[in-house]
Structure formats: structure tokens, C-alpha cells
């Protein structure tokens, strides 16, 4: 579905990705793991066109992908950033309607509210009045309203209470069971590998290991060497 081939990218003159290559397959969840500074979030930003691809290619369904963020988003890729980026001066409803009114498909306002009933109780609240967990739910719900073919999530559990991490896990599992393709960058090893089908480990801007979630769960040496688990 999404293929990166020898991609170099970075911030200005600082190159972070050095020949990044992996494939995310249709209907599966790919987890990108790695230590801090390995280049996981940079990979996602490059896929989303938020950072320029200096070298290499990114293919979506075998075709060269658009390079501008809005064209990439309109091609069916939704991105939930680490910072969540909830618009504080808009209410929950308005944050959702920002995408709901521009995309059509199976994901409607009612459907995302059924997935996250908590948001239904908060519709008239402002973005700044939400807890971290609610903000994450809103960020995911807003992305789903883009009716994506591929959902990309950057550190969805960061800073959340364990009970909310479990809630987010269950919701993402529901999405996976419904057949939604996902790419997940996550520091929480247990969370990521229990959700993912495939795993790639990033070290110093390139893939240092790839395999299935079952394989990495069973391989303590890999976990210790590349993830410090």
C-alpha cells in the first residue's frame, strides 16, 4: 500500500533519515519502533509531506505519492500528530466539523461519536477544556472523519493514564478489526506489539530490523539491542 524506498529526509541541513525503506501493507497495522531520536516521527512527517524528501521515493499503491500535505491528505492518508494539535479556540464539535464537512464516506460525526462516546459529552467544550485522553480521542476522531485508507498515528499513548491507554488500544483494535490500515509510531512496546501485525525498528535514520510483532515479542536480544527494553 505505502512503500518508502531509500528515503533521505531531515530538518534543513540536518539529515535524519538515511535510506529509510519499508512497506506498509493494506489492512494491516505496521508499528515503527525505535529509541528517541532514531527518526520515527521524522519518517511520518516525511510521509505526510511536512518534511521534504531529499532522496528516494514514496509510493502509494505503486504510484508516486503527492508531495504537498493537503494533496497527501486528500489522497486518503490521515495523520494524528504527537502534539495532537487540537484547535483551542474551537469547540469539540467545531474541531470535528473541520474535517467532517470536507470529506464524505463511511465515517460520519455520529459514527465517531459512537466510537468515542466521551466526545459526545464534550461537544460544546473548547479544546483547552479537554483532558489529554479526550484530546487524543478528538485527534483520532478528527482524522477518521477524513475517511482515510491509511491512518498514521504518532505516539498516541504519550502522557496518558494507563486506563486511557487501554481505552485507546481497544478503539484502535476496533479500527484494525474493521480493516483500516494503520502505521503506528509508539514508545510503549507492549501497546505497539499487541496491536501491530508487522514491526520495523528504526535506528539512526534507517531500518535495522523488520519482522512480525510475534517475532519481536519473542526476541529479547533485538528488544534489548535496539529498544533498550
Amino acid at each position, binding site marked *: 500500500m505505502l512503500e518508502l524506498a531509500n528515503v533521505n529526509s531531515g530538518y534543513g541541513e540536518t539529515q535524519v533519515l538515511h535510506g529509510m525503506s519499508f512497506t506498509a501493507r493494506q489492512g494491516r497495522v505496521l508499528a515503527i519502533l525505535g529509541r528517541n531520536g532514531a527518526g520515527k516521527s521524522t519518517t511520518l512527517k516525511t510521509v505526510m509531506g511536512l518534511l521534504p524528501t531529499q532522496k528516494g521515493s514514496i509510493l502509494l499503491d505503486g504510484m508516486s505519492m503527492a508531495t504537498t500535505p*493537503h494533496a*497527501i491528505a486528500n489522497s486518503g492518508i490521515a495523520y494524528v500528530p504527537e502534539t495532537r494539535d487540537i*484547535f483551542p479556540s474551537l469547540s469539540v464539535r467545531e474541531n470535528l466539523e473541520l*474535517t467532517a464537512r470536507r470529506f464524505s464516506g463511511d465515517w460520519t460525526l455520529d459514527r465517531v461519536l459512537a466510537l468515542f462516546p*466521551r466526545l459526545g459529552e464534550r461537544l460544546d467544550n473548547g479544546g483547552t477544556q479537554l483532558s489529554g485522553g*479526550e484530546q487524543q480521542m478528538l485527534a483520532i476522531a478528527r482524522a477518521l472523519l477524513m475517511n482515510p485508507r491509511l491512518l498514521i498515528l504518532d505516539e498516541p499513548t504519550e502522557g496518558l493514564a494507563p486506563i*486511557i491507554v487501554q481505552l485507546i488500544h481497544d478503539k484502535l483494535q476496533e479500527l484494525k478489526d474493521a480493516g483500516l490500515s494503520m502505521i503506528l509510531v509508539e514508545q510503549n512496546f507492549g501497546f505497539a506489539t499487541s496491536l501491530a501485525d508487522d514491526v520495523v525498528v528504526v535506528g539512526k535514520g534507517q531500518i535495522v530490523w523488520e519482522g512480525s510483532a510475534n517475532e519481536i515479542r519473542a526476541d529479547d536480544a533485538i528488544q534489548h539491542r535496539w529498544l533498550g527494553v
Partner: protein
Amino acid sequence: MFRHTTFRYLVLAILGAGALFQAFSAGYFGLEVLIEILILAILVLALDMVAGFGGMVSLCHGALMGLGAYAYAMLSSIVGLPPLAALVGAMAIVGALAWIIGAICARSHGIYFIMATLAFGQMAYSYIFQTPIFGGDDGMGGITRPDLSAIGIDLNDSRSFALFCLAGLVLAYLAAVAVLRSGLGRSLCGIHHSEERMRALGLTVWRVKADIFGLSGLITGFAGALAAMHVMYISPGLLDWTVSGEALVVVILGGLGTLVGPLVGAVAFVILKHELSAVTPYWHLVVGVVLIVVVLSRANGIFGWLEARIGARRIFPTHAAVKKVPNDA
């Protein structure tokens, strides 16, 4: 995003009542001051839409107002359109020009955006100044006001014209609120917060900025046409960049990004100007000191200061915020 609060309604009611009282009780000079306030209020309302809600600090809104005045004068005096049709035509012309300026400047930010809009404003000034058909430095006279005698209103009467401008300000305010509360306004709000995020949500950012700039231009063109009707004479001075600078001062003085604040700013600025200029020719110095105090106080203008202290801002319902939830999410 713009929201009304009880305090905002209260301030609007006070301003409206004050304007009506002035319109029905003031003499000729008082009415002229009122008309000046009302036209300035429409201009700063339009400027607040882009600067306050979109972060697009424009230094060409004075020029856009001047173009509105010239477009109205040309369409009514030279082309021969009825004044009301000329008014609509002037708004459409300025709206279209503003859309083009917004589209071109949309990719720049901060100081570069300000300089780009200043450049457009100065280009408009030079063009009007150097083109003979616009009268050059001599300007254009003999501009007429709409004829509403069919409904018993004589706009050549200052009181009637002041009420006409007040109705115009109400319409402009309602239009600005409608735009800012629409999907377009929400998108602008998102862009102001994070352009990158809005792009990643699939939005064509430049288009939203251009659309809002165009709609703001439409309202600015309306202010320009009213300014032409008011004085019945126009000159290139209307397009000078200092008019834009003065409008920006009024928006900041009143309260950026509040829509109500700039109206308060327009009242404060014009009254300060008239009262102080009667006492000293250095009235600009006093206005400058007031502006510095307002900026250094870190309050969002006069209205922002009042709202923070008296209004106890309740933009979103607080009862829902403390609604009992089953866990610590």
C-alpha cells in the same frame, strides 16, 4: 473562533444605544464625528477579520478603502450607475482586488506579509495619484449619495446619513460574524493556530486566506464608498499607508481578534483625536502614549482589558467542563 458572550452583547448594546442617542441628539459637528466613527468602525471590523482572526496583519486596508471610494465615485459619476448600484459595484471590485492580494500574499507570514500588503497599498496609491482620470492630487468632487427619497429618507441630511452608516455598520458586523462562524471562519481559526496541521487535514490554506481577505475587502470597499459619500470629495490621501497604520492602531487599541474591541477602539480613537486636537496640535503623541500603555499592559486592548476583568470570559460553557466523568481521562 468568534463567539458572543453576555459581556459582548452588553458592550454592543451600550455602543448601539450611544450611537442612536448621538444620532438623534447631536448637532451638525456631533453628527460628523459620529459618521467618522461609524465609517472607521466598518474599516477596523474588516481589518480585525484578517489580522485578529487570521494573523494576517494588513497594511493595505487603507488603500482598499480608498479604492472603494474611487470605485464608487467612478461608477456613480463617470459610468453613471445609480448610487446604490455603484455602492455594490465598488464593494465587488475591492472584494475581487483583495482576493487577488490575499491569494498572492497567502504564502508569506509575519513581517513579509506586512511588507507585501504595504507594497500593494503603495502601488494602488501611486496608480490613483498618477492617473489623470482620477484627478491626480486634486482628487474627485461632486460625489452623490444614494437617493432614498422614495422611502422618505434624505441622505443629504447628516442625521439620516449617520443612521444610514449605522445600519451599514450593523450589517457589516453581522456579515463579519457570519463569516467567522462559518466553516470558512473555523478553517481560518485552525490556520491561525497551525497552518501545517490544517494542510495535513487536507485544507488548501492559501485559498482560505484569500477568501477571507476577499470578504474583508468587500466590507472595506463598503467603508470606502461610505467615506466617499460622506465627504462627497475624494483624494489620493485616502489610500495613504498611514490610513492603514491608523486602522491597525485602532484595532490594537480596541482589542485584536474580538470584533467588538475594534468598535470600542474606533470610538476611543476618534473621540481622543477630536478632544485632544482641540487642546494641542500634538494629539498624536498622546494617542501614541495611550497605545504604548495598552500594549505594555499586555491586556488585549481596552475591550480585552475590560473583558478580562468585568466580563470574566466564558467563551465555552463551564458547566460541561466540570461535568462528572467516570475516570481521569
